[in-house]
C-alpha cells in the first residue's frame, strides 16, 4: 500500500524516496527490523481493539434484536392470551369488589331460590354454568379487607365439589370419599377461584401492555415475562368469562364452642349464587354446620371438609324441598340451624 505521505504534487523520484523512507529502506536493517516489530505490535493492538469493538457492537446489536423479539413475543402472547376477553369481561375484576360487598352485609336478607333453580336439574344447570367461587369469613369480607389475601386463601373446597358432584348419601363414609375426591381434583369443576382473576387482571390492562412496550432493559422485560408466565392466565381468563358468582360466607359462630383442629366449629354459612353481569341473586341460602355429628377421627382430620360437603347436600335438599312445594318465586323463609 502506498504511503499517504506521497501526493500528486511530488515528482516521481521524490515520491519514491518518501516511500523508501517510510518503509525503512533507508536505514540499517537492524533499525528497520525493530520498526517492523513495533509496527506489527501496534497493528495487532489496533486490530484487537477493532475486533473487540466490533464484537461488542455485534453482541449488543444481537441483544437488541433479541430483546425486541422477546418483547414482541411477550406482547403477542399477551394479546393471544387475552384475545377472547371482551371489554366487559376485562372490567370484571373492577366490579367484583362491589358485588362482593353487596352480598357480604352482616344482615341476612333471607333465603332465595330463583324459579328456574327450583329443581335438581335447574340447580345442576345453574351450577354447570361457569362461575367464580369464593369462600371467605363474612366478617373479613364485610370489612372490605384485603380481598386478594382472602381470595388467595379460598380454594375449590369440598363444598364446591359436593355441590357440583353430590355424594350419594350423607354418611360420614360417603362424605369422606367425596372429600378425598375433592382433594385430588378428580372431578372437573365449572368454577374458578377469584384469586387468579384478581392476580392476572392487571396483565390485560393497557397500562401493563404499555409497561411491556416501554421496557428498556432485558432485566425489566424478563421480570414482566416471568410474571406473565407464572400467572394463572387460563384460570383467570375462564374466571373473567364466568357468568355466575358463587359466594360462600362463613359467619362467626359461637366462639365459646370448642373448635376442631382445622378451626371448624358450629356456625352458619351463607351460600349465594348471583349473576355477574347484573349482580342478581339466583340462590341465597343460609344453613348451619356443626361438626359434632362426625366421628372423632374424622372430625380431627376433615371436620371442615365433611361439614362443607354436608352443607352442599343441605343446599340441594333445600332446593328439592322447594321443588316439592312448587311455590315458584317465593323466598324460602325458614332457615335451618342458626
Amino acid at each position, binding site marked *: 500500500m502506498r*504511503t499517504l*505521505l506521497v501526493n500528486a504534487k511530488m515528482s516521481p*523520484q521524490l515520491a519514491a*524516496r518518501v516511500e523508501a*523512507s517510510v518503509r525503512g529502506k*533507508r536505514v540499517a536493517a537492524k533499525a528497520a527490523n525493530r*520498526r517492523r516489530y513495533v509496527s506489527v505490535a501496534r*497493528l495487532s493492538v489496533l486490530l484487537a481493539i477493532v475486533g473487540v469493538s466490533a464484537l461488542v457492537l455485534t453482541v449488543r446489536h444481537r441483544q437488541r434484536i433479541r430483546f425486541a423479539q422477546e418483547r414482541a413475543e411477550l406482547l403477542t402472547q399477551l394479546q393471544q392470551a387475552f384475545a377472547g376477553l371482551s371489554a366487559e369481561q376485562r372490567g370484571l375484576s373492577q366490579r367484583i369488589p362491589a358485588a362482593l360487598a353487596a352480598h357480604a352485609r352482616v344482615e341476612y336478607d333471607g333465603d332465595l331460590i330463583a324459579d328456574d333453580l327450583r329443581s335438581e336439574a335447574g340447580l345442576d344447570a345453574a351450577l354447570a354454568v361457569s362461575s367464580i367461587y369464593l369462600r371467605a369469613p363474612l366478617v373479613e369480607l364485610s370489612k372490605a379487607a384485603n380481598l386478594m389475601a382472602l381470595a388467595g386463601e379460598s380454594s375449590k373446597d369440598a363444598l364446591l365439589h359436593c355441590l357440583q358432584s353430590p355424594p350419594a348419601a350423607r354418611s360420614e363414609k360417603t362424605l369422606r370419599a367425596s372429600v378425598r375426591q375433592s382433594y385430588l381434583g378428580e372431578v372437573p369443576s365449572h368454577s374458578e377461584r377469584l384469586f387468579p382473576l384478581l392476580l392476572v387482571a392487571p396483565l390485560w390492562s393497557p397500562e401493563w401492555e404499555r409497561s411491556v412496550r416501554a421496557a428498556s432493559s432485558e432485566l425489566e422485560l424478563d421480570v414482566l415475562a416471568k410474571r406473565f408466565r407464572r400467572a394463572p392466565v387460563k384460570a383467570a381468563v375462564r374466571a373473567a368469562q364466568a357468568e355466575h358468582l358463587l359466594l360462600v360466607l362463613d359467619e362467626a359462630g359461637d366462639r365459646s364452642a370448642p373448635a376442631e383442629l382445622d378451626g371448624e366449629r358450629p356456625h352458619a354459612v351463607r351460600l349465594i349464587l348471583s349473576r355477574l353481569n347484573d349482580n342478581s341473586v339466583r340462590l341465597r341460602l343460609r344453613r348451619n354446620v356443626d361438626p359434632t355429628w362426625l366421628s372423632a377421627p374424622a372430625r380431627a382430620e376433615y371436620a371442615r371438609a365433611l361439614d362443607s360437603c354436608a352443607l352442599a347436600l343441605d343446599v340441594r335438599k333445600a332446593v328439592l324441598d322447594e321443588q316439592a312445594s312448587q311455590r315458584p318465586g317465593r323466598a324460602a323463609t325458614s332457615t335451618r340451624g342458626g
Partner: protein
Amino acid sequence: MQSPLDLLHQAPRRTIDHEGTRLALTLAFAGGTSGGLFADALDKAWIAPSTFRAEEFANELFLQRFVAQCMKVRIGQSDAVLQTRYMARLLASPPSDLHTLQFRRLILAELVSQPLYRKSIEQIYQSLCRLRSLLENAGALRVFDANRRRLDILQTFRSIIDRMVSDFAGARSGLARFHEFAANFQAGEAYTALVDLLKYDARSALVNLRMAVGADGSINAFEIVSVQEDSTNPFVNSVWRRWLSKFELFVRGYRFSDGEVLARFIDSVFGGLENELVDLVQLMGALEFYLGALGFRDSAVAAGLEVCLPEFVQPSEARELRRLFNPLLLMSGVVPIPCDIVGGALASTVLVTGPNSGGKTRLLQSLGWTQVLAQCGLFIPAASGRIALASGLVASLIEEAKADQAEGRLGMELMRIRGLFERLPPGAMVLLDELCSGTNPSEGEQIFELVVSMLNRLEPQAFITTHFLAFASRLAQTSKIPGLSFIQVELDVNRRPTYQFTRGVAQTSLAGHTAERLGVTGEQLLGLIEQNIRKQQSLALAPVN
C-alpha cells in the same frame, strides 16, 4: 551520478570511498556521530601516483611541522582546524601527472588574481566546517530537536550549492568545476525538492491576524483573518491527510507526531543529495590544500617575503631561484634572510662550503621545500624560480645517534651512503649535509670523491655540504668530476656570514670565530675554570648548620 567535484586532479575522480562515506553520512545525518567522519574519509583518500617517496625526505624536511605551522588557514579572526594528515600525504606525493600539476597551478593563480574567488572558497570552506560540525555533532551535545539539526544541515548544503553557482560562473581554471557541479545539481529534481522542503519549513503557512489592544496594552480581542497555505508545495497536505499520515506512521512503528512526518520528508530529500554530499567531503580536503597554500603565502608576505609559482624548465637549462628563503625558519617566528641561488643544469652536483652556522643546512632545506612545493603545484618560498622537475627527492640532513646503533660515526656514515645509493632514482634531487664528516679527513675525502663521482651517473640535482675545504679546492682546480660546481657562504667585512651564497670554495670554516662567538676560546675557558674553583672553595669554608 554526475561527474565528481575534484579540484586536485585534471581528470576528475572520486578519491574517497564513495559508498563507505555515503553510508557514514547517512548514519550521521540520522543520528549524529561522535566525530571523525570527514577525517576518516580523507585519511583513506586516494593520492595521485607519484615518483616521490615520503620516507626519503619527509622527516628530514619536517614535513608534518611545515603543514601544521606554515599552511595555516586563517579566516577572519580564527585559524581553522585542518585535516593535516591528508595535506601531509598530498605534499609527500607530488603528482607525476604534469596535467594535474598544471591544473593546480592554474587554480592557485586564479585565486591570487581574483580575490573574490578566494573570498568565496573561504566562505564555502566555512560552510563546510559548519556542515561537518552538524553532521559529526562536534561537542557531542544532546540534540533536542533532531529535525531542526537536519534542516540546518540541508540549509547549509543549499547555501554551498547556491554560492558555487553564483560566485564561480566566470572562473577559467579548475574553479569552474564549482559552477558546473552546482549548476548540474540545481537543474535536477533533488534541488527542487530541497528548496521546497526548506520553504515548507520556513513558511508553512501565512496567518493574518487582527488584534485589538487596549489602553493598558493588553490584548482585548484576537481574530484570525485568514490562513494561507502554499498549496503548490509538495510537502503541504490537507488537514485530514496530515492526520492520516501520522496515523499511518504510527501503525508502521514510528511516533505519532507531526515531527515524524517531517522527519520522513527530510530523510527523503536527503536521499536525493547524498552523492553530492560525498563530493563535499572530498572537496574539504582540496580546499584546505589551496587555502593552506594561500595561508603560507600570506605568512610570507606578512614577513616581507615573496612566494611564487615557479617556471619549469628543461633539465638541460639552468635553474634559478631569486630571494629564496627557508619556510621552516619562518614558522619558527624568525624572519629568514632570502638569498639567490643560480645553479647549473640538471645532472649537476653543487658542493656548498662555508663556516658553521652559515646557513648551509638551511639552504638545503629551502631547496628541498622548493622542489616539493613546486612539484605539488604550490607556491615556492622564492620571489621567482626556474626549476626542473625531479624524479624524486632524497634528503639526508639529520643524523641522530641511536641507542642501539651497532657502528660508530664512520660506520653510520657509510651506511648512510649505502642507503642513499640503494634508493636514489635517476634524475632525483639529492640533499646531503656534511658528507663523510665523521672520520679522518684524508680517508673521508676518498670516500667523498667516490660518492660524488658515482652520483654523476644518476644525473641528479645534488647539493652537498662539506667542511673538507682543501679537498673541495683541489676538486675545483682539477675539475676531475664533470658537472661539479661550487658555492660558498658569503662573509661580510667582519668575516661574519651574510647568509648569501657566491661561487667558489670557502677558505675557512671560521671555527675560531664560531668558538669565540660561542665562548670557547682559551681565555674564556680559563675564566670558567677559575670561577668554578672559587665557587668550590667557598662552599668548603662555609659553616655547617
